[in-house]
């Protein structure tokens, strides 16, 4: 009964989207149906929420007569994973996507007062087109409420790697980010249609970009930590296609975030901002396509189906193709906006946009290259060695631009005005670079420069606060400072981990010890362990350094439903790093246990920095939202 109600709500929501589109289309003519747009968006939001709650309910009670529940859940599964299972599969995650999208539409309809009624109508009309595509996808090829007759007694279970609290938040976080970018896309196309590409439009779009970016930042940070402790080999970024798929929208969103600020404040970079909004949406669609279609092999692909991939690919090509055609037709009439000189805040943000776009291009090409090569009959791999060598130099250039950028004046500035700061940053870079090179020879050029630039950026990020009354400084400035400082922290962690990690791989009998980076780790014993839906072994380890002893309990688990083996690393977190311990298989001939140990100095800074970046975004967003919105303003930007 609940399944049918959920499905009915979904169909009604799709009908509302159609109504919303009809209203939007009527704006071309007399606009008679335009009054329908906003109510339709709100009702659509409510219906989708109902539908999603219905699915959660079905998972909660484990209604095995529903195909999706039967194939992804199991009666013995812990309660939290039953609920998280709702969106831990393809159909459920798409329903979540559509729900968040409908809620965003409702929020725009309810709250958006900065842009004129016509642009708002056009924006919601475009949004209706986008969501109709996803409704069609959901209803025709991924119905989450499909029944299974006869109902099985137990259910198949969920991939054990996904039975983790990380799952409960990771995919939805990324999806909310993707949806936010689709809203930015709707705004951009809406503004192109009504020829209102100006500061008012930028101010309306900015919170959505910022919100999407915060979620993407959190999603990538959390995903990286999850892979780090779950996969059991101590890596935190694999340049895996699925990781790249989430990184590309983030790169585009980061560039968009900076250029939309220029448009909102200075009325410049109009065409760039629109272009980046289209690219960001295209990247989030491409990301979804890459993950869902299974065209690329990856450690993270848990839901794979070529037919659905084709559907998403078609949607992506239709939407972005149409949008780029519109862009090409209209952009000739969009003047680039207020002029500025090379050395200026705008100039620095253009540099930011260039470097981020180039990194995005490299990641995109590197990810798709094996596909293209395979089509030509060549089976090649593009992996970490390529991505590191190709992107890190550009990322370092980006950091250099970031040292100076935020302290430059708008419109025009002189480098000479900042010469003391420049000398200071150069001194920090030189000093720390030489120090690393001197005391840790053979560390490699990238980690050395990474540490040097991170230290300089940590100082530089606070410079914009100089000479300001700290009580009256707007929140977005604080947000920027914290986000840039967070980047420095994160880069420091990455450089330190890749340059200074110590590894010890051994086989130990109970009672024996191994050494790593000043730690003595003793394997006391190996005991059986048992959980709700797995059995396994647990190592009892004692880690000792400088007279202090800590207990570590790494596990190796064997799940039943479905059958799979995973290793649960034990992590000992100190302020200056993490001790990472894994207990693997017994050695067949000697009877010893394989033990893997790593000391990873400052590795936690990677994710701590990522969280700071997101926090900076949140503070900026709050600052934008707490300010009273300005009245709708019309911009006559088109050359008549």
């Amino acid at each position, binding site marked *: 009964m609940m399944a049918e109600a959920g499905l009915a709500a979904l169909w009604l929501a799709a009908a509302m989207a159609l109504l919303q589109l009809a209203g939007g289309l009527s704006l071309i003519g007399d606009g008679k149906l335009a009054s329908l747009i906003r109510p339709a968006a709100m009702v659509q939001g409510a219906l989708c929420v109902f539908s999603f709650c219905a699915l959660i309910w079905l998972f909660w009670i484990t209604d095995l007569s529903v195909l999706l529940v039967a194939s992804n859940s199991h009666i013995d599964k812990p309660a939290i994973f039953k609920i998280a299972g709702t969106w831990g599969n393809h159909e459920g995650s798409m329903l979540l996507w559509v729900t968040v999208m409908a809620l965003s539409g409702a929020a725009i309809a309810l709250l958006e007062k900065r842009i004129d009624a016509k642009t708002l109508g056009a924006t919601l009309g475009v949004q209706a087109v986008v969501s109709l595509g996803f409704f069609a996808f959901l209803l025709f090829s991924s119905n989450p409420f499909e029944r299974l007759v006869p109902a099985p007694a137990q259910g198949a279970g969920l991939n054990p790697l996904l039975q983790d609290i990380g799952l409960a938040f990771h995919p939805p976080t990324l999806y909310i980010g993707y949806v936010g970018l689709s809203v930015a896309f709707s705004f951009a196309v809406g503004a192109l249609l009504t020829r209102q590409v100006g500061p008012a439009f930028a101010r309306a779009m900015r919170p959505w970009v910022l919100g999407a970016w915060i979620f993407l930042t959190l999603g990538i940070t959390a995903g990286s930590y999850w892979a780090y402790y779950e996969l059991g080999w101590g890596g935190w970024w694999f340049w895996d296609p699925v990781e790249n798929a989430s990184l590309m929208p983030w790169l585009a969103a980061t560039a968009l975030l900076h250029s939309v600020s220029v448009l909102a404040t200075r009325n410049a970079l109009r065409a760039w901002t629109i272009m980046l909004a289209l690219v960001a949406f295209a990247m989030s669609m491409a990301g979804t396509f890459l993950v869902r279609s299974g065209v690329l092999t*990856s450690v993270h692909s848990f839901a794979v189906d070529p037919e659905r991939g084709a559907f998403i690919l078609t949607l992506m090509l239709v939407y972005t193709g149409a949008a780029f055609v519109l862009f090409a037709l209209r952009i000739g009439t969009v003047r680039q906006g207020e002029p500025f*000189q090379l050395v200026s805040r705008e100039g620095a943000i253009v540099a930011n946009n260039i470097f981020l776009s180039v990194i995005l291009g490299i990641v995109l090409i590197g990810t798709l290259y094996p596909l293209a090569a395979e089509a030509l009959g060549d089976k090649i791999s593009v992996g970490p060695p*390529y991505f590191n060598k190709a992107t890190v130099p550009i990322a370092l250039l980006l950091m250099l631009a970031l040292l100076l950028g935020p302290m430059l004046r708008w419109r025009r500035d002189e480098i000479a005005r900042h010469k003391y700061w420049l000398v200071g940053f150069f001194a920090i870079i030189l000093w720390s670079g030489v120090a690393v090179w001197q005391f840790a020879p053979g560390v490699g050029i990238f980690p050395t420069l990474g540490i040097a630039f991170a230290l300089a950026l940590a100082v530089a990020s606070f410079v914009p606060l100089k000479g300001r009354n700290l009580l009256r400084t707007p929140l977005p400035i604080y947000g920027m400072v914290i986000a840039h400082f967070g980047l420095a922290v994160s880069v420091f962690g990455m450089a330190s981990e890749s340059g200074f990690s110590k590894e010890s791989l051994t086989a130990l009998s109970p009672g024996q010890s191994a050494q790593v980076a000043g730690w003595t780790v003793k394997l006391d014993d190996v005991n059986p362990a048992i959980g709700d839906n797995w059995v396994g072994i647990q190592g009892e380890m004692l880690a000792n350094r400088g007279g202090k002893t800590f207990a570590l309990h790494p596990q190796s688990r064997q799940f039943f439903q479905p059958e799979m083996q995973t290793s649960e690393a034990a992590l000992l977190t100190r302020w200056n790093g993490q001790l990472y311990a894994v207990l693997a298989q017994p050695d067949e001939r000697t009877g010893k246990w394989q033990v893997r140990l790593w000391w990873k100095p400052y590795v936690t800074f990677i994710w701590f920095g990522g969280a700071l970046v997101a926090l900076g975004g949140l503070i900026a967003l709050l600052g934008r939202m707490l300010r009273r919105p300005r009245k709708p303003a019309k911009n006559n930007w088109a050359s008549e």
Partner: protein
Amino acid sequence: MRQAFTILTLLVAAPVFAQGSGPIPELANQQLADPKKEAEATNLMHGLRCIQCQGQSIADSDAPMAATMRAEVRQQIAKGEKPETIRKWMIGRYGEWVSFEPEMKGSGLLLWAAPVLLLLVAVWMARGLFRRRA
């Protein structure tokens, strides 16, 4: 020293009592005694794909195939082979698919040129922004 001797003995003896049996299995999960050689081996292992798994390097995988390949890498490094030679050997054996680092020739050339080309295109696109005097 003793470990080196053991390995050496095994290496010499290997062909005698185990024809084509592959590398010494212990080397899959145990480091070489010489940290410099081990670092070379680790670096190489991160650039080789585990052909049995989905997109993991042999340094990051629990699969038996990855273990065999790790042992092979460590053994050849211990013998004094250059990492590049071993990579070529792996490519010869498993195809280009096994190497995460595409060759800097043929179709791979475009891939390696991409960063510079992209940078040029982006700067060219941005050139109009600065043309007018503020």
